[in-house]
């Protein structure tokens, strides 16, 4: 059965027709063309499909789109400023060489954004736990942690962009 779901995707109010059992991952990729949301395992093991739902990092492969009624979804396609420049967390991933194959990158950037937006202080060990739902086979996480720490520092020293 088809359902009409109204939600906000990357700041844009959107209505989309979806099947009952449709995962948000498939809706975002196949119906809305947001291909940064990656299909790595489809059972919540790898974290590549992570998006922010009302600011919380969620595996979109495990989240039914019908649950997203009225919610706000953020993917990396929605992070750049209006003039096209990168968000601080995207820039930190580039500067810290935290990107290799790039398949885990969009999901990790969104978890990093959740961490930065929390405004909380985290030790390196706590950050390891916070990103442990993301599997990466290229980086050993070293530079990803550096990027997250850098983004946290930048958010403290700069006013938060609205």
């Amino acid at each position, binding site marked *: 059965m088809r359902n009409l779901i109204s939600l906000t995707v990357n700041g844009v109010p959107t209505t989309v027709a979806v099947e009952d059992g449709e995962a948000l991952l498939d809706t975002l990729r196949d119906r809305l063309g947001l*291909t940064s949301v*990656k299909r790595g*395992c489809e059972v919540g093991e*790898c974290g590549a499909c992570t998006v922010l739902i009302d600011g919380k990092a969620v595996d979109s492969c495990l989240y039914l789109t019908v649950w997203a009624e009225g919610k706000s979804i953020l993917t990396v396609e929605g992070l750049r400023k209006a003039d096209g420049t990168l968000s601080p967390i*995207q820039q930190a991933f580039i500067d810290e060489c935290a990107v290799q194959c790039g398949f885990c990158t969009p999901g990790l950037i969104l978890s990093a954004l959740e961490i930065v937006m929390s405004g909380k202080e985290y030790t390196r060990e706590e950050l390891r*736990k916070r990103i442990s739902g993301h599997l990466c086979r290229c980086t050993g*996480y*070293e530079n990803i942690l550096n990027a997250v720490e850098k983004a946290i520092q930048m958010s403290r020293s700069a006013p938060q962009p609205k």
Partner: protein
Amino acid sequence: MAVGQSIPRVDAFAKVTGEAKYTADLVPANAYVAKIVRAPVASGWVRGFDLTEAQAVPGVVRIFTCFDVPDIQFPTAGHPWSTVPSHQDICDRKLLNAHIRVWGDEIAVVVARDRISAERAARLVKADIEVLPALSTPDEAMAPGAPCLHEEKPGNVVVHSQFHLGDGTFDEAAATPGAVVVSGHYSVPAVQHCHMEPVHSFAYMEGQKITVVSSTQIPHIVRRVCGQALGIPWSRVRVIKPYMGGGFGNKQDVLVEPLAAWLTTQLGGHAVNIELSREEVLGCTRTRHAFDWDVQAVASPDGTLLARTYCAKSNQGGYASHGHAIAANAANVFKQCYRDRVSLDSESYTVYTNRPTAGAMRGYGIPQGCFITEALTDDLAYALGMDPLEFRLKNCVQAGYVDPHNGITMHAYGLDQVLEKGRAAIDWDAKRRLYQNQTGDRRRGVGMALFTYKSNVYPISLETASCRMMLHEDGRVTVQMGATEIGQGADTVFTQMAAESIGLPVDAIDIQSVQDTDVSPFDTGAYASRQTYVSGMACKMTGESLRGKILDYAAGMLERSAEGLTITDGQIVDETGQTVLTVADVGMESCYSLTNSRHLTAEETYHCEQNTFATGACFAEIEVDLALGQIHVLRLVNVHDSGRLINPKLAEAQVHGGMSMGLGYALSEEMLFDDACKPLNANLLDYKIPTAMDTPKLEALFVEVDDPTGPYGNKALGEPPAIPVAPAIRNALLHATGVSVHSLPLTPQKLIEHFRAAGLLGGEDHV
């Protein structure tokens, strides 16, 4: 200078914004979905099918079985083709197979309009299967009366090879007065690549041309194998490689591409999509080979290595894939790392079994070979009562080494500096003393392992690479490589090399990240840590050629000789240092001149007949919790001698990733099977690759010794970081506890058994 700078990755922007399109992001919306029907046993014969129920599923387009495909056997290894038949890869599979050799073998395929229909119908395909006993190990497969997997290889041995070096024998060496002998049986399990992007290909036709879009390290080889598998001229196939989410060798094999290519030919050229699930990738593509060894080593009382014997059995699984090349590589590193003064006897078997097919994986047999080499080395040093680093310094390979079999030469030698740098970084001497007499439930140790690694596949196989460049009206240059970016950073270092060789700033270079075999110059692809060394030389040669053409054209514009002109940072400069033109001036004039319009392009092939060894070592400091059987890695330091670094920051990142893979090999990764060879943990929950919480701080150090054979003094780096980590941790465990573990991974269950046997846990009632 563009080379040697840590410029940001050229593809990072596209990857952090989601602009980078991977294979899954390019599938046409109306593509049919193909779902492979997999054998529910690991050994047997398909005698027939009942497709009635499956065909009745709405949405099913066609079902093809192993009885429908061309009667053509083809190879899958991502090796350069050999025009010499005796050197060609083994052709041992068809598109779909009636003879089942692995659990999940591809016996039929359902094509449907959508994924749900395809999966539903695939579950309803009924196969009549005659089940045979499944063979788990080389010993089972080599036993008399074992079922034969491939009629071309009775007895199931794919290849058996051996060599002897030295004038004496092991027994003579062992008879030396006071000689210390160690021997044992060692093993490593099958592990899997776990690239984050699953295996994925789709295919469609335009006229007679079959286009295959695939996540592959080896587009030109995929084209060849698709041509072979379908029995058609190779250039009728066009392979496109988009952005790639990792490969690590699994995608140095031809996987689902030929099936996708064949299906579109059977369906009027309609697009057909094959995206494997994570479970299929883990259980049904390729693995790192499991190995078993029986080895011996003997040293004189002063710690001089006299002789070793090596007998390896490499578990090939059901199909030949890369076959004996892996075992040969493992035997080579055992030989190349140390100097046996009396003799070395080496023997290797690669044997078909009903385990998943093993193929290429980062390090290509060297992680296995390094484990046995370095575990045995530490066990020998331990028996001698000698510091294992001192033992290595006394016996390891020296400058100028030439492999006696293939002639590969250590043109530059940094191993001595590697060992000293690692020794200082981990504070080796103090820690070895500090941890020598520990008691209690938590004990610490330091251990290390070294390796050598060649920089390409010459002279075992062909090495060739090519590059093409074109100058645009605005002075920018587009670079096309046949070599592939798979996540490792190849496009960035090629950009740096192109800028350096032409004389342009790096932001004046546009490299095409997508390979298209109808357009891209020829290259065999990403494997053997070859691209920076081999393809990099093609890039450098092409840049120098284009630079010459730009200067010639500039000389014409200036009505002078090109001699004395040079290009620096996009400016054409004369003998006096004056800027006389810009490259942009030349680009514009060369395109639009009314008297001499000439598109300035260059294309060169590097037929590489050179090779050299990279070396390196890992130093590990660990704490062992005896009661929990758990190893905590306190420090992990890799030191690499990979020649001059093209991009130090990327090199460091590459080392981090390899260390992480080595850490998983050491502590947690192991493919598990039941007695019938069915995978038990083919998913990312039960197959444990390291998470951020499992990973210590990763320290990457380098010694930069220019190698005269590399394009900029560089040599192999891509695979080496994964090699020495597991034996270094294993050797740190020996130091911490005195317990010599002969297998990987070092799981708590295994360690508790070892600690109990060693009396470290105080007997049964202690637990």
